[in-house]
């Protein structure tokens, strides 16, 4: 039983990591558009008001050695509680308080079995597809500039 629970927690963790990542990387305009289409009107309270701050990005010497501080990135975070008691949070790059709050609400709803599938299928999945398309397009344009250099024989 304990093992089954652990397994379930792991799965939830992996899923939650994945949707929090997709929400953080998607533009607010797209999240908002998909959200509006769902026409849901959940009620929530703020546990943590949206707050703008920074995180320090670290690199490693030579790419794989000692960590060093590269510089900071702006980040906005928020935490909410739905009427059903489920809490959600968000950490989103940039300074959009609106996105941070909406993402926290979505995180809470995705943890609520009654709303999970609806949000996941109609919001997370299309956002994920858009992100993957963009990434593939960027990569294919880069791949089109792949080069083969030839060395020339010099002198005699």
């Amino acid at each position, binding site marked *: 039983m304990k093992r089954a629970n652990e397994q379930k927690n792991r799965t939830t963790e992996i899923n939650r990591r994945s949707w929090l990542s997709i929400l953080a990387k998607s533009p607010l305009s797209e999240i908002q558009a998909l959200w509006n289409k769902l026409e849901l009107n959940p009620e929530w309270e703020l546990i943590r008001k949206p707050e703008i701050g920074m995180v320090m990005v670290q690199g490693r*010497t030579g790419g794989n050695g000692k960590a060093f501080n590269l510089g900071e990135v702006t980040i906005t975070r928020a935490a909410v509680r739905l009427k059903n008691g489920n809490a959600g949070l968000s950490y989103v*790059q940039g300074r959009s308080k609106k996105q941070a709050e909406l993402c926290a609400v979505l995180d809470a709803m995705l943890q609520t079995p009654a709303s999970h599938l609806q949000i996941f299928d109609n919001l997370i999945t299309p956002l994920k597809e858009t992100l993957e398309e963009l990434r593939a397009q960027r990569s294919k344009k*880069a791949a089109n500039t792949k080069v083969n250099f030839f060395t020339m024989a010099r002198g005699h």
Partner: protein
Amino acid sequence: MYVAVKGGESAIKNSQELLAEERRGDKNVKELTLDQIQNQLSLSLDRVMAEASLYDRELAALAVKQSCGDLVEAIFLLRAYRTTLPRFGTTVPIETANMSIRRRISATFKDLPGGQVLGPSFDYTHRLLDFSLAANGDVPEAMEADGTVDRNMPRVTDLLNNEGLIEEETAEDDNEPFDLTRESLKFPADRPARLQNLARGDEGFLLALAYSTQRGWGRNHPFAGEIRMGELSIEFIPDELGFSIEIGEITITECQMINQFKGSSDIPAQFTRGYGLSFGHNERKTMAMGIVDRALRTRELDEHVQAPAQDEEFVLSHSCNVEASGFVQHLKLPHYVDFQSELVTVRALRGEANIDKTNIVKPISDIAATE
């Protein structure tokens, strides 16, 4: 010494209004939007974000607009803004081997796993002015290859490392690295402290230092082992979750400089490393950083400090353009009291010497006029 002055309020206000008008320019010309700056002056933003050491494209665009395109001023503005924000924590160190590559080249190996990807680059342009841009010509869409770039793009230095041909990178450790935004730099500075300083250091300063090593002032024989640019997710572990989540994506440029050998009776000859890393697409900056990083490693590699680029106190104390431009430009502010005291001193000295006025060396212009 600078002694504060009072007054001038209305002149200062008027001067700022005049600046605002100059910034706007001719009102018959459309005003620049932040969107336009973000999209069409992206390399300006990349430099501003790197040297302000704050990644935020929108704010960097605002800083560029506000500073009328003066990038050092824009860096100052963004650096000042970052002091107003709280820090939520530190990311998991980025793993550049996982980068979504948009550009990746090596000047040391022509065939390497994953291949060479030129990406968007000025390198092979002819540097001829393109007048079609002046005519607002439409740009054709860039073509896509059938497939994406190879997922497996090992770092060139890791390949050399597998053969033992390059020195091992310093081992990972759990110590929090030095942070110069929290404590002041002390000498000798360790490599993480030096790299943080160089990463936010002035591109022009680092470029000149790197160039000086190539011309013989602390030569270290660099090769651009690899330059890569692309996007990386940043991961953060919020206390309330206890596991890491991706919180966004940033553009990063990395340069691995491979330098001439170092060996001893115990260790056979190996290449040595210099490392450059920067926010945004900043190739010249990361290359210069890699060369200067290598030059500064004199203690680790048992070298004598013979040139400016190898002197860490000289380099690290003068790399920040916010500090440098502040200290140089403060000379413009009123120094009247200060200068008065200098005047009194110099007059007194001359009085004591009882100088015969006919013996004063004449300015060159006067000499020319009499001759």
